[in-house]
């Protein structure tokens, strides 16, 4: 194969000291992409995490004769701190100081294929793989040293990568050869005793923060290659509209413009200067005439629309005889909750750099999945995956399937038209707002019976939603591919089944309810483009379920925390609920006029991190504004690698969710999407931030890592609604809980 990769991208990682590893291969893999879709795949083999696909130590750890240690992960840094956590794991298990580890993240030219960095899977998949691979590497090195020294391995110890014993010192680098670490990981062996950890479990400062805060090259937006030119795209008013005409000649005559790229209805412009490209884009857009395209829904009627669309009925949970039970004296509680379409809304629009050279194509992208993105781009271009390399560089916050993959496809299409010139493409704000795949609108209808003793006699929960996953591949899930002459349209949906679920994620109650039925009404069509937005259906399901549990507790005259604890069996769930309640001071809370407390709990996906949130709110009667006071959360993520990283994710999840919950709704009419900037899609600003957020991290030494990045969003939303109900007596069930809706509820 040609090598399309300029030397400057190699970063010299493997050049120093000649790492003696020749056996590492990154060939095509058998399994589907990991990430969201991994939920579909059956468990493979016995090895944990991503070792299932890459069982050899040297897929993860390479040690050079000069003692350099290169750790590989197929996951990407998204600002969640994964780089630092994986470095901590490797350093702990190899027993070396942190600066000794060099980490290589997602790059189809170098790292394992770990699919998508999504679904809070990075620690469970990559962290677990590196944990066991590094532990085994240490054991292999110790065994070899013991043989050379002729002493029992138990008499040896490791000091920062130097094996010490029998009065001698042997560096790791002296022991390695090209096959030493090409051994299968035997994960039955324990990683070393968690009680002796000195690096894992510590709040090690993140390695990516200082460069970001001092203006180093930190994002794909900052990548500057020699001879680089700038591109902007022009998109139609609606997804599948066709281009009738555009004044390409006039735009190509503008200052600095190198050319317009047109392929069917796909339009982009390339210029020497970035602002020249922006001006040319504006002119091209003004001259473009479009026709046709789908009719968008009316935002005011989203909930009715969702319930009226054809859907597939999936009974995802059933206990007991079903139907309304409870007999005489049972009281029915019924409620319907809705969620509008919502945005990822990354602060920096999507960006990518492409370079077509010597028959190959390299794309630098903030995609969550370099391998899946490569497959989709290759399919779109009709070329072999072998000639495409996708290298991850960080972008502005991710939060799921945003515009990153599309921008990478833009860079590929435009770079192909300008061979030999690196092309940087950046979307405009309006394009990000209008073209990113949204989080799906949803409706939940819940009904339950309360027996005279306050017990739940039956439980029925129905949810309606379009898909939460349209990730590429296939190529038809790249928006640019819709517009090409050889159009790939419409996008393809995936419905992730239980237990992780997609639309129905966290729809199964975590509580012991003897007579429960949960039904997903899955809508296969897409009135608006949608895909994975942080926590998928869990945000809405936890909002609805935990609001409804609160309504039941209220109807039963029970304390909401006690009502939950009475139905929670998992001791780890009970512990986070109790910890959040205790640290908040639930029992001693004093209500005031317009001031109340709210509580909610969920275990993300019913499989990952446990999170409970308690908070106080004040509702301003005149304005209807919900002011969030003190927030206390408790989280159990299994073995803690970086407590500050976990706290950061939980804090951020609460604050982000408090924006989704109070402010956010994609505004759309049949004529088009109206949410085109931060004025027409307002989000939380500093004056709306909580008074304080305190996170209690429960450590579980030796327990498996549990994904944390999406654990807090659902509980935070329900805690807000529950606190508003506690403060005012008004129950709000339609997201977002805007000041206008609060005012209306208080008046009515």
């Amino acid at each position: 194969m040609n090598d399309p990769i300029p030397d400057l991208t190699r970063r010299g990682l493997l050049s120093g000291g000649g790492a003696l590893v020749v056996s590492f291969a990154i060939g095509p893999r058998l399994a589907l992409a990991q990430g969201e879709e991994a939920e579909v795949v059956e468990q493979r083999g016995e090895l944990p995490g991503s070792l299932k696909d890459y069982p050899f130590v040297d897929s993860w750890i390479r040690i050079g004769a000069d003692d350099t240690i290169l750790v590989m992960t197929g996951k990407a840094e998204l600002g969640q701190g994964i780089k630092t956590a994986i470095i901590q794991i490797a350093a702990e298990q190899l027993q070396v100081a942190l600066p000794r580890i060099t980490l290589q993240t997602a790059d189809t030219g170098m790292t394992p294929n770990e699919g998508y960095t999504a679904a809070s899977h990075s620690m469970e998949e990559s962290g677990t793989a590196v944990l066991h691979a590094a532990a085994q590497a240490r054991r292999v090195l110790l065994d070899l040293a013991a043989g050379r020294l002729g002493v029992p391995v138990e008499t040896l110890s490791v000091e920062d990568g130097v094996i010490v014993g029998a009065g001698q010192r042997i560096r790791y680098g002296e022991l390695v050869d090209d096959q030493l670490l090409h051994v299968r990981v035997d994960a039955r062996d324990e990683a070393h005793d968690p009680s002796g950890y000195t690096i894992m479990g510590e709040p090690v400062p993140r390695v990516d923060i200082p460069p970001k805060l001092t203006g180093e090259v930190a994002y794909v937006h900052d990548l500057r290659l020699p001879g680089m030119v700038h591109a902007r795209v022009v998109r139609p008013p609606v997804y599948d509209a066709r281009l009738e005409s555009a004044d390409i000649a006039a735009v190509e005559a503008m200052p600095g413009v190198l050319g317009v790229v047109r392929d069917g209805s796909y339009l982009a412009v390339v210029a020497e200067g970035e602002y020249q490209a922006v001006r040319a884009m504006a002119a091209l857009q003004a001259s473009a005439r479009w026709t046709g395209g789908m009719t968008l829904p009316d935002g005011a009627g989203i909930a009715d629309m969702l319930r009226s669309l054809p859907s597939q009925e999936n009974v995802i949970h059933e206990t007991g005889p079903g139907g309304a039970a409870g007999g005489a004296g049972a009281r029915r509680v019924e409620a319907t909750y809705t969620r509008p379409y919502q945005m990822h809304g990354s602060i920096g629009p999507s960006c990518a750099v492409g370079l077509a050279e010597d028959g190959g194509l390299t794309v630098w992208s903030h995609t969550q999945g370099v391998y899946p993105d490569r497959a989709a781009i290759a399919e779109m271009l009709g070329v072999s995956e072998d000639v495409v390399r996708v290298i991850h560089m960080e972008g502005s916050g991710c939060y799921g399937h945003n515009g990153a993959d599309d921008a990478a496809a833009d860079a590929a299409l435009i770079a192909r038209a300008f061979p030999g010139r690196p092309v940087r493409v950046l979307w405009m704000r309006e394009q990000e707002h209008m073209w990113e795949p949204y989080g799906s609108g949803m409706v939940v209808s819940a009904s339950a019976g309360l027996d005279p003793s306050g017990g739940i006699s039956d439980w029925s929960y129905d949810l309606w939603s379009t898909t939460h996953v349209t990730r590429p591949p296939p190529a038809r899930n790249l928006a640019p591919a819709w517009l090409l002459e050889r159009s790939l349209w419409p996008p393809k949906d995936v419905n992730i089944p239980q237990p992780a679920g997609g639309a129905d994620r966290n729809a199964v109650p975590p509580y012991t309810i003897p007579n429960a039925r949960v039904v997903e009404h899955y809508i296969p069509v897409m009135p608006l483009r949608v895909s994975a937005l942080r926590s998928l259906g869990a945000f809405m399901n936890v909002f609805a379920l935990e609001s409804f549990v609160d309504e039941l507790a209220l109807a039963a005259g029970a304390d909401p925390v006690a009502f939950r604890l009475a139905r929670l069996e998992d001791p780890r769930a009970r512990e986070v609920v109790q910890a959040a309640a205790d640290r908040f001071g639930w029992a001693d809370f004093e209500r005031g006029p317009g001031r109340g407390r709210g509580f909610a709990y969920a275990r993300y996906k019913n499989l990952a991190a446990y999170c409970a949130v308690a908070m106080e709110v004040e509702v301003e009667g005149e304005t209807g504004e919900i002011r969030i006071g003190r927030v206390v959360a408790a989280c159990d993520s299994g073995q803690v690698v970086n407590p500050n990283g976990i706290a950061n994710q939980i804090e951020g999840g609460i604050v982000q969710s408090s924006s989704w919950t109070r402010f956010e709704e994609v505004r759309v009419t049949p004529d088009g999407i109206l949410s085109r900037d931060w004025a027409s899609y307002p989000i939380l600003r500093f004056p709306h931030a909580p008074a304080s957020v305190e996170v209690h991290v429960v450590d579980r030494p030796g327990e498996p890592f549990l994904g944390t990045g999406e654990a807090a969003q659902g509980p935070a939303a329900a805690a807000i609604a529950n606190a508003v109900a506690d403060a005012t007596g008004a129950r709000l069930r339609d997201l977002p809980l805007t000041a206008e809706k609060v005012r209306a509820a208080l008046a009515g």
Partner: protein
Amino acid sequence: MVTLNVNGAPFETDTDPDTPLLYVLRNELELNGAKFGCGLGQCGSCAVLADGRPIFSCLTPISVLEGREITTLEGLGTIDAPGPVQAAFIEEQAAQCGYCIPGMIVRAEALLRRNPAPSDQTIRDWMEPHLCRCGTHMRILRAIRRAIDGGGAETRARDGETPA
């Protein structure tokens, strides 16, 4: 030809004077700190100081900036010697994706130069024009408080004010 003063050094450019400052900073001076966020003055990612006051560099044409002292994130410190506000943000681990943080630091710097002892409410109100999507607000507020209480003296002294 437009002559700018960026981080204490003159810079001459023959770029169209209507060009917003952000593009000159990023592409001609190769300064990464100011980021493109919205191009509309709604998010603050592009903030820099002009004569000590925060401006949106995505909107401000270079033609109106001649003779004004422009300070970018890079003018506040380096990775080896971060400025007091940068150091406070690092100390508080006040970032997730970090894309908005350079603008936050620049705007916080401007506040500390004009008001060495702002109240918490003043800080929140002052930061209102800036958006963070990761929900890092609590850490950003803590970092600004830390810069005021602990690390801000150098900033204020540099600006000729009396430390509190």
